[in-house]
């Protein structure tokens, strides 16, 4: 694919494509050596798609996820998220894009230990300027949706791993994002809980049409998603449809 046709595609497919990565490169300098983490990555993901990003550790898949989640900016290439050129955005605008378009699910849950489940879920809404009462109402509805309506006042420490990840998923979903970015979401869970969490994510993808990207090194997890791409030595290739 050449750059010219890529731009043409962007203009035509703004409405369909949620993610457009074009020739994304990311490198780090370490003691006079340049380490290429991502070489020349091109990726398109449409609204409502579900996609697994596979790769062994050190392959660059975490860096790719950080770029996708606007937690890190690429050194080269273009990234359009929902038609918006990320390179043009100010730090505040990047924050607002993360807040409104993206929901993160982390391997280690990353709930704030001092807040109740309900307040953890309500947190993204407060960064949107929504009043606390309203935010808590929406957060409670989302906790009910993931099956934890009874435990909204619990602190994360008194919840099991599976329950914590459900809280994290509720937090990712509460802002009605276009995209869920899940980084090894089942990595810290036992096999049966992992199945439940994956089932929940896929159900949300199917029923609510939220785009789902899951980073994993586990082919069994990856196989449950519609599309798989593999990162290998900083390059991306399609791993075939399920």
């Amino acid at each position, binding site marked *: 694919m050449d750059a010219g046709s890529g731009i043409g595609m962007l203009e035509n497919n*703004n*409405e369909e494509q949620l993610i457009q990565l074009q020739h994304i490169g990311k490198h780090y300098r370490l003691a006079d050596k340049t380490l290429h983490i991502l070489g020349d990555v091109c990726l398109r993901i449409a609204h409502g798609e579900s996609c697994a990003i596979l790769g062994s550790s050190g392959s660059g898949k975490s860096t790719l996820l*950080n770029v996708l*989640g606007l*937690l*890190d900016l690429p050194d080269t290439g273009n990234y359009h998220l*929902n*038609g*918006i*050129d990320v390179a043009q*955005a100010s*730090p*505040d*605008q990047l*924050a*607002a*894009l*993360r*807040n*409104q*378009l993206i929901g*993160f699910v*982390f391997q280690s849950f*990353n709930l*704030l230990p*001092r807040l109740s489940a309900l307040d953890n879920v309500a*947190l*993204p809404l*407060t*960064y*949107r*300027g929504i*009043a*606390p009462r309203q935010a808590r109402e929406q957060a409670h509805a989302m906790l009910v949706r993931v099956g934890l309506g009874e435990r909204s006042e619990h602190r994360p420490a008194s919840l099991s791993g599976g329950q914590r990840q459900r809280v994290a998923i509720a*937090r990712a979903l509460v*802002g009605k994002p276009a995209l869920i970015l899940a980084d090894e979401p089942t990595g810290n869970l036992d096999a049966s809980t992992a199945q439940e969490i994956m089932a929940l994510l896929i159900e949300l993808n199917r029923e609510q049409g939220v785009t789902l990207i899951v980073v994993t090194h586990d082919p069994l997890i990856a196989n449950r998603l519609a599309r798989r791409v593999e990162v290998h030595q900083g390059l991306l290739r399609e791993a075939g449809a399920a």
Partner: protein
Amino acid sequence: MSLSMPLSSGPSAAQILLEALNSLRMLGRRSLLALLGIVMGSCSVVALLNIGGNAAAQSIAIFRNLGSDTLVLQLPPQPTGLDGLPLRLSVETLGRQTPAVASLSPVMTYGAAAIFNGRVGNANIIGADPALFEAARLNIASGRSLSEFDRKEAYAVIGASLAQALSLPDDPLQPGDQLRLQSYQFRVVGILQEGAPGMLLPFNANETLFIPMEGMTRINPVPQISHVVARANSAEEVIQAGEQLRQTLAQRIAGDAPVTLIFAQQILEGMQQQTRTFTYLLAALGVVSLIGGGVGVMNVMLMNVSERRREIGVRLALGARRRDIRNLFLVEAVALTSVGALLGAVLGMAGGWGYAQLSGWAFFLAPGALPLGIGSTVLVGLFFGLHPAIAASRLQPVEALRDE
């Protein structure tokens, strides 16, 4: 571009504050220790400012008794009039030439033993015009003051302490009694109220026997005018009155020896200047301890930030802007110091009260102490909280999240 950038907005002030207080509660003992440092700092600023203020008020109160409209002129030793004889002054003529002066009296000083019913007291004898009692604010406790008609009489008004010293419980000195000065009998016509020893007047009224100036020759063959005590029409006119008197007197005295002008305001201002310096010195000491407390706050906030790196990363991922992160930690630092400032203010006022009790001063709330103490403490919190808060807000999301 078909889609516009989303607008960014943040949590409300109340939410930020609530979260900060909650977070401080969770920090527990460590924030208590930082709080202690701030309390000590705020306490010492408030206490020292208040003690300084009370000390100033105390010393000024002593001088206030004089009245700030009183003035004293000190004449050169053995002043000689233009006629070559010892200086004589007419109160009436002087009064006409000095319109800003309300009342005035020349003063002659002498020391002699006063004997009452065989009891001897060392008296400071002042020969003066009757106007002295008004000019120097001398108040009569019993009997009467000297009047214009007493000029030729051997009458005297006696100070409270001297009267006390000459009295016995069963034989008190009373108006009408006779006192012997050298070979003359003087009749006591009045006793003065006990007053604060004035630092401005050339005599201590409590220890003094006042007699008409004309009577001085009876006990002192060569009486000399040493001072002129006067009172201006008002406190505002005191400098003008002093100048008028000084010039008039200088014209009547032979030679060019200077007439020195002393007025209460002068001393009062010097006094205020001195206590102001003293207060600033104390406040500076307080500020030093406050800075110590501020460093404690910075320490606890830096630890707080580094322990919550991951939380910062999560918040950034959830859509917090840099300023949201900065406010999060800044509000925590300011909340911590505000609590410390209030506790310190209460302790500081208590300390200032205790010090005033120990020193026997009147306690009052020095006007600047609370706002300056609390304000400077909160500013210190803001200043020392700013660095950790900005450091937190500069974290890149990916770096903050990477931290384990």
